[in-house]
């Protein structure tokens, strides 16, 4: 019975907290983008605009909820609900604080559904259902722009599911589990040099990129891109239904950030401050803060990326998935299998990842040249100054 109560309490807290957090993430996004563009950002409601999310929430609640006459009503209403539902469901198995920890007060638990052995699989399965919200929304809107957005979203998500799953398969092979808590525990037990990012840096990069695409975040927000498709799949949506779509997107972002921190950055582990052996009062709170801090910095990175780099063209998007990330993640998986089978040191994986990265760069640079040279009237070009400059810059960063 207390177990049930604790579960209900956790669900209540998570479901209550996520919309609030999402609201403030939107404020953070608006503020960060404003600072990047030498603006101030929302600053009218409350000190420094801190109550802006409340005002936005009230506005979205009270706004007229338009259901256009030409839509498929059932699907139109269902789509935003589905989008939020799947995003929240995926969060159920993600630990957002220290789990299996005796120091945590017994009535607090930092995961809704503990000890799910198919952890990552569940997140992917439910997360990929999230695209149904988009597809149904776009389809039900009965509008060309929405339909285009929905089509793009489905093609994109189908393509990026593969590298997303495959980049984590290597991790699953290495750790022998899909359970997120044990994945975290294993990294914590091994200390800083056992964080998965050391053995799977390329997989981490691909996982992060693919999950950006999964969440329809820029530079992969082809499904809603305002400049060509108005709003894409949510063109016809307004008021609370539109807000629910955003809630889904931001919840997805939170889930991704927690997943990346747990899978690759050692969860709540931080050298000297929160080791497996350290013990001091309030440690669980510190652990919670560390894990949330890691997730928060990933969210900040996503926001920065959104306002930094331009959107991919659709063919470039598909090229990145099918020509680059899928072969690379496959090669990465084979590399892990090889290392595991012949019981090489795990550090070979680090070297191998760098080698794969280098191979990828070389191949794609030469492929592009080969492709161009097949064009009629091709003249071999010199490298321009921009490229030289970039090269020098990167070289400097390398040292």
């Amino acid at each position, binding site marked *: 019975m207390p177990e049930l109560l604790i579960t209900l309490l956790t669900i209540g807290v998570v479901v209550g907290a996520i919309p609030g957090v999402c609201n403030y993430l939107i404020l953070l996004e608006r503020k*960060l983008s404003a*600072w*990047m*563009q*030498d*603006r*101030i950002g929302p600053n009218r409601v409350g000190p420094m605009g801190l109550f802006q999310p409340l005002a936005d929430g009230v506005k979205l609640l009270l706004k007229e909820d338009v259901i256009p006459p030409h839509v498929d009503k059932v699907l139109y209403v269902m789509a935003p609900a589905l989008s939020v539902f799947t995003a929240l469901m995926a969060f159920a198995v993600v630990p957002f604080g220290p789990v299996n920890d005796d120091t945590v007060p017994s009535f607090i638990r930092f995961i809704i559904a503990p000890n799910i052995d198919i952890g990552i699989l569940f997140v992917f399965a439910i997360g990929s259902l999230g695209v149904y919200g988009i597809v149904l929304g776009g389809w039900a809107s009965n509008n060309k722009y929405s339909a285009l957005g929905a089509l793009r979203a489905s093609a994109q998500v189908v393509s990026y599911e593969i590298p997303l799953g495959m980049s984590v398969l290597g991790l699953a092979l290495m750790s022998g589990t899909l359970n997120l808590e044990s994945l975290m525990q294993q990294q914590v037990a091994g200390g800083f040099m056992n964080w998965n990012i050391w053995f799977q840096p390329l997989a981490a990069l691909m996982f992060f990129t693919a999950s950006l695409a999964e969440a329809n975040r820029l530079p992969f927000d082809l499904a809603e891109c305002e400049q060509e498709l108005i709003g894409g799949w949510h063109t016809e949506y307004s008021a609370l239904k539109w807000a629910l779509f955003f809630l889904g997107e931001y919840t997805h972002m939170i889930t991704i950030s927690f997943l990346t921190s747990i899978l690759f950055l050692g969860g709540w582990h931080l050298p000297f401050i929160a080791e497996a052996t350290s013990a001091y009062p309030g440690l669980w709170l510190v652990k919670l803060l560390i894990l949330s801090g890691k997730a928060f910095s990933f969210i900040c990175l996503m926001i*920065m*990326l959104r*306002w*930094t*780099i331009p959107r991919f063209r659709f063919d470039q998007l598909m090229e990145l998935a099918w020509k680059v990330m899928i072969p690379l993640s496959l090669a990465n998986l084979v590399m892990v299998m090889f290392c595991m089978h012949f019981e090489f040191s795990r550090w070979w994986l680090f070297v191998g990842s760098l080698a794969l*990265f*280098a191979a*990828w*760069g*070389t191949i*794609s*640079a030469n492929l*592009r*040249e080969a492709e161009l040279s097949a064009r*009629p*009237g091709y*003249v071999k*070009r*010199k*490298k*321009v100054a*921009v*490229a030289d400059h*970039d*090269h020098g*810059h*990167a070289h400097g*960063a390398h040292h």
Partner: protein
Amino acid sequence: MSETKTKPKKTVTWVEEPQLGFWESTFVPAIMKGLKTTLKHVTDRNTVTQQYPEQKPDLPLHYRGVHRLNRDEKDRVKCVACMMCATACPANCISIEAQAAPPEWPDRDKFPKSFVLDELRCIYCGMCEEACPVDAIELTHIYDLTGETREALMFDREKLLSVYDQTKDNPRDPVRTRRGILGPAAEFSSLPTLGPATGVPAADRSAKNPTAGVIQGNQESHS
């Protein structure tokens, strides 16, 4: 293949995209560079925006806002109801009803009995101001014009005079009239030629004009 042999005249300059090297193909340094730029802007907190209602913008002196009807030194409306502004107005937003001036006003024949200017219809081109022979109508710096009904923005004579009372002491809206002298449009015996907006070659005859505009040779010698 035969089409490639007959080369068309070279009228278009094709610019080839730069060749991408190893690092460009991986995207990573370019993204890092972009992040560096945006991060720099986040941290330097050098805002360029103005906080509008608290901080009013410094408009250029030739800004054209809401109209006013000037008063002369005896506080009478300066307008003589000559209809020049209403005629010049491309938006047709001025309607004047003239009346014979009372005998105690010996300096004019008429004055406006009603003068209605539709501020919503006006395109703020300033042609009324240029047309006015007595500098009675002028455009001010007031730009934040609001009203609750369309009728409220049909400015009549009294309203336009009150705009004058409101703005006459503002240094940005000086009263440009000199009593007894006609307006600036009357001062030209011939209109000066305007310099061309585009550049002229230095060897061209027009480059020796006093108002030649941009002379191309000068620029090239600098670079």
